[in-house]
């Protein structure tokens, strides 16, 4: 296994081996799970196997996270420049791009050409949607990088779930506005994921469109100019999905609708849990304070991190958005989710359970300390939250 040598400031020489190096291939393999289901279906004749990726996402991954546990290891800062330069890690993010195309086309072909009961047909559309939700994760890792090659790959992979605006929206919108009431991609205390989705999905698109329109206006173009990066990715999406309909028939229209919505729902789920209730303070000049590590929820659960390109080390990502996944760090005393993302998604789908687990954690954070003024709170919910959590709130009496 490849090791790195470096010299610390103290003069001490160190040798570092990244034990997760090869395990990152899981982030490449996880999105091709639909093929595993198809293979098992072909071997056994049981269409139920097609739903295996739903089981692995919603049951097996949370259990494995719980069994395998957490990893707080960080690479020593002295080797990070070498780690960032090591092509192995970035090649993995390139390799997964065509696999996302293959997963959607393969699943669509299977759904169109086998005699499937209706539940298996739409189940397979959901399975393809989960894989394409991971395409948004791949596009996320690639889109934050500075090279034109990686940015273009981001736009290409985001075309699979028809989410090309994400590249603009995420960096220039979400990262700028994160953990503020203005951010449609940061959830508020007392806001259920279902209500959040209705604010997030259109809000994110409109923000991206607005940012791109402003850029094009500065260039002297209309919003509908061919340089519009949202339209470019959209045309690629249209070509891909129209191609699927032409190749495999009309039944692909409902299949693709379910696929797209379910892929978006994966991102909505991640956005919902990543900044729930967290709030940046406004400074005297009217700007929000710079996003601090305490403005993101994190998880160090190994399994879910390994299939998500370390997305769950979210605080370091927001503090240093250009840092590559292999170098993201854990820090002590950060807001921690009770489980990896997959388990947390499930929790969020049952709002009362989510509030029960998370509101307490939120109010107990050192920088919040029971002060609702330090919380991004759903308008109209404050009175109800105050009375429900009276015992957890800071009092003015002291």
């Amino acid at each position, binding site marked *: 296994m490849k090791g790195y040598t470096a010299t610390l400031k103290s003069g001490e020489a160190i040798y570092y081996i990244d034990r997760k190096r090869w395990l990152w291939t899981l982030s490449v393999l996880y999105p091709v799970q639909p093929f595993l289901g198809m293979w098992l279906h072909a071997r056994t004749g049981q269409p139920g196997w097609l739903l295996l990726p739903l089981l692995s996402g919603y049951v097996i991954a949370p259990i494995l996270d719980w069994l395998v546990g957490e990893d707080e290891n960080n690479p020593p800062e002295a080797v990070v420049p070498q780690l960032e330069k090591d092509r192995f890690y970035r090649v993995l993010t390139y390799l997964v791009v065509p696999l996302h195309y293959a997963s959607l086309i393969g699943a669509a072909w299977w759904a169109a050409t086998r005699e499937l009961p209706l539940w298996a047909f739409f189940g397979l559309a959901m399975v393809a949607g989960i894989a394409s939700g991971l395409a948004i994760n791949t596009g996320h890792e690639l889109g*934050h990088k*500075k090279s034109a090659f990686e940015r273009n790959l981001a736009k290409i992979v985001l075309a699979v779930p028809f989410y090309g605006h994400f590249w603009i929206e995420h*960096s*220039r919108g979400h*990262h*700028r506005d994160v953990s503020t009431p203005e951010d449609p991609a940061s959830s508020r205390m007392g806001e259920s994921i279902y209500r959040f989705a209705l604010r997030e999905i259109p809000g994110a698109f409109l923000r991206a469109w607005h940012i791109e329109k402003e*850029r*094009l*206006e*500065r*260039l002297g173009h209309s919003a509908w100019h061919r340089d519009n990066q949202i339209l470019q990715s959209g045309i690629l999406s249209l070509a891909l999905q129209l191609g699927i309909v032409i190749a495999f028939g009309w039944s692909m229209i409902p299949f693709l609708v379910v696929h797209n919505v379910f892929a978006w729902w994966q991102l909505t789920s991640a956005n919902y849990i990543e900044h729930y209730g967290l709030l940046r303070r406004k400074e005297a000049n009217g*700007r929000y304070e*710079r*996003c601090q590590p305490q403005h993101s929820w994190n998880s160090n659960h190994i399994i879910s991190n390994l299939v998500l390109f370390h997305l769950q080390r979210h605080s370091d990502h*927001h*503090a*240093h*958005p*250009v840092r590559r996944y292999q170098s993201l760090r854990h820090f002590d005393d950060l807001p921690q989710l009770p489980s990896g993302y997959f388990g947390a998604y499930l929790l969020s789908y049952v709002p009362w359970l989510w509030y029960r687990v998370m509101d307490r954690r939120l109010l107990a954070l050192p920088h919040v300390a029971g002060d609702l003024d330090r919380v991004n709170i759903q308008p109209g919910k404050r009175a109800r939250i105050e009375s429900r959590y009276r015992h957890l709130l800071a009092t003015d009496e002291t």
Partner: protein
Amino acid sequence: MARHRCPECGYEYDEVSGDDHEGYAPGTKFSDLPEDFVCPDCAVIYKEDFVTEQRSAT
């Protein structure tokens, strides 16, 4: 004409060349960029937090 560097990611705004992707023409002064300008690469550094480097030549 000065250069302005993002302290987080190293992006450089050079007033001589502007930024053609972002639509800032060559010669556009950093002070003339919009008030809500954030680093085009990392998007977490506001305009006032950029580091200014005076050019020695030209």
